[in-house]
């Protein structure tokens, strides 16, 4: 076929930030009425109408273009929030692009949301029909594949049982079976969203491989770069909603993507630019992880070096509720610990003073394992107010620990586990040896002569 199966031209997606956040998620009629009344009133009294759409915009995707021929497998990579899932949602037609154009030559099946539309009260068989219809199958098609789906899901005896009585495993198998039997020209797989265990994800990948092998077109979002390299014929790397790299040389793109990722890890300093976080009590200005020479880290650091978390802030009111500190996350964004200046007994708290202050905290050496870590700034008024809250878009810095795990000759490579403390062990003699001094001396001399010989 000469024309590409999927062609995306200059696609962008814009969100209004203020509107879709927290309690203000739904557009309430009163807001519309209020702004209409206000603007009407302004017109009446002759004031110029203010621009109503002052809510800040956010482009989740901008100017994305690519084309995919029949049988092509496109791997989409990028960091969290780079716009990968938004792009897939636009191609799956769940949401609409704010600009640009998408051309699809065929049906789109997605393994984004298996089991969508399942109803717990309906039986397995009924749900197969319903879910199949939602995914775009015709009744005839479903009837023909019904037995295959049941066999694939291994639920033959429970076909007339309401799915609310199914085990989670059965439920997932059934849901996946329906999605996997949809014959479409285009398949969309978002592995980052795929729920379920490793076995299930493997099944997803397997099905995707079959799809690609049969010459159909696949779009694949994954953090699993090995899978991308193995399966994809082209790769697309997104960064902050824009295409950074795109091409058929998948390996080169992955390598380049990995290289820039480690560059980002060097961002071990955060400096408050443009006077953000302007708070009457305290304004954080600087947040960094420094070495013993008071310099921010500029690359991976050995585990036996001294590391300091440094926070500088402008104190404007001496408020005893003021807490400054950080939360430490590992590479998988799992919170390891939090530390604040107020963690100890009150008399040991650092004395606060008006003006620019610096707080330092030394991280224990040889506690963390090798790997990438992220620190997020914590700044709050105890039990009253968050100024920056870890996990909620707080300023963050990163550092990497590599090497220097231990001085032991036995401990030469990184072990599993989040922590890798090199602790000293002590010995207590509970009972003296049964051997006499003589025999011990004899053993010792044999041992030393053996070692001499070898």
């Amino acid at each position, binding site marked *: 076929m000469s024309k590409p199966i999927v062609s995306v031209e200059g696609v962008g997606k814009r969100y209004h930030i203020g509107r*879709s956040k927290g309690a203000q998620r739904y557009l309430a009629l009163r807001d519309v009425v209020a702004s209409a009344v206000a603007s009407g009133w302004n017109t009446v009294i002759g004031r110029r109408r203010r621009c109503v759409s002052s809510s800040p915009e956010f482009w989740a995707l901008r100017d994305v273009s690519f084309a995919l021929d029949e049988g092509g497998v496109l791997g989409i990579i990028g960091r969290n929030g780079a716009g990968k899932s938004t792009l897939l949602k636009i191609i799956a037609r*769940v949401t609409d692009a704010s600009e640009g154009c998408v051309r699809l030559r065929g049906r789109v099946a997605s393994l984004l949301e298996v089991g969508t*539309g399942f109803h717990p*009260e309906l039986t397995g068989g009924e749900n197969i029909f319903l879910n199949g*219809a939602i995914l*775009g199958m015709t009744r005839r098609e479903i009837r023909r594949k019904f037995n295959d789906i049941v066999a694939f899901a291994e639920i033959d005896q429970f076909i007339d049982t309401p799915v609310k009585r199914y085990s989670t495993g059965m439920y997932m198998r059934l849901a996946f079976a329906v999605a996997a039997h949809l014959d479409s020209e285009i398949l969309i797989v978002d592995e980052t969203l795929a729920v379920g265990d490793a076995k299930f994800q493997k099944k997803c990948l397997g099905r995707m491989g079959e799809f690609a092998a*049969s010459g159909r077109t696949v779009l694949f979002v994954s953090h699993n770069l090995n899978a991308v390299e193995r399966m994809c014929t082209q790769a697309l790397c997104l960064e902050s909603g824009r295409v950074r790299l795109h091409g058929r040389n998948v390996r080169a793109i992955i390598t380049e993507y990995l290289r820039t990722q480690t560059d980002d890890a060097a961002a071990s300093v955060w400096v408050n630019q443009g006077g953000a976080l302007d708070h009457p009590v305290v304004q954080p200005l600087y947040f960094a992880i420094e070495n013993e020479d008071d310099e921010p880290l500029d690359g991976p650091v050995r585990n036996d070096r001294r590391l300091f978390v440094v926070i500088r802030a402008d104190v404007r009111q001496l408020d005893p509720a003021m807490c400054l500190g950080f939360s430490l996350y590992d590479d998988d964004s799992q919170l390891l610990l939090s530390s604040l200046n107020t963690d100890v007994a009150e008399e040991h708290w650092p004395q606060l003073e008006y003006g620019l202050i610096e707080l330092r905290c030394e991280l224990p050496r040889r506690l963390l394992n090798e790997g990438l870590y992220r620190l997020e700034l914590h700044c709050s008024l105890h039990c009253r107010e968050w100024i920056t809250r870890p996990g909620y878009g707080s300023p963050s810095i990163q550092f990497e620990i590599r090497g220097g795990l231990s001085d032991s000759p036995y401990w030469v490579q990184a072990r599993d586990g989040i922590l890798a403390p090199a602790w000293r062990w002590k010995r207590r003699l509970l009972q003296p040896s049964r051997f006499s001094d003589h025999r011990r001396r004899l053993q010792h001399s044999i041992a030393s002569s053996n070692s001499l010989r070898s």
Partner: protein
Amino acid sequence: MPQVDAGSWEYEIVLQRGESTTYWTDLWRYRELLFFFAWRDTLIRYKQTAIGIGWALVRPAAAMAVFVGFRKIAGLPSGQVPEVVFVFAAIVPWQFFSTALTEAANSLVTYSNLVSKVYFPRLLVPVAAVATTLVDMVITLVLLAVLMAWYRVVPGWQIIVLPLFVVLVVGFSIGAGILLAALTAKYRDFRYVVPFVVQCGLFLSPVAFTLSSIPERWRTLYSLNPLVGIIEGFRWSILSGDAPPSDAAVLLSGSITLFSIAVGIWYFRRVERSLADVI
């Protein structure tokens, strides 16, 4: 490449700024989903409730009892037709309209987890809600037939016009339903507006009384409520009444129905584009 039904799918979809070139084709391709949605909702409704399908009988029967009592107290004349049948003939379209409107208005919000995750023509959602209510109407019509047999009321030739009025009430429910579904999805306030509108509609529609109890000069104005023509039409065709609904009332109902469908679709398509983001 297994070409399963490929012939029917060989088409190109162009999505540009929220506009799909295949809007109406898609709707047609997904027509079976309408049936599945209606089937699912009917199944679920009657699986989850204790007396199941009985609710389709109990609700109109209870409403009828109330109205018959009301008419007795108010001393309204019903002519030679038994009171029970007279009221029930109007309850059939009213019950359908009020239920369909409420269900359709809430449908997008109820289906929000589906709408934000999978693509299918969204217009099917409120239409399916109306279709589900249609099942109830069939059941109430059966109950009406039983009542008529009991009271020995034989319908005349006018009964053949009944499908026209059924089409009218279904059409108007769809038009108003999709408009309110879009409005409810965008402004949640309409969740409170719709029950209120339905409540007022009961008193503005000739369910407990007839058009003839309205002063002559107000009748045309009153017929702006499309349900007036519809309900009067139901009564006339079922009971072979001597007072056929005025042409003006029927014409008004018809044109308002068409207008509501047009406005409903127009507004729905506007909201639809950003639905997954706002819902």
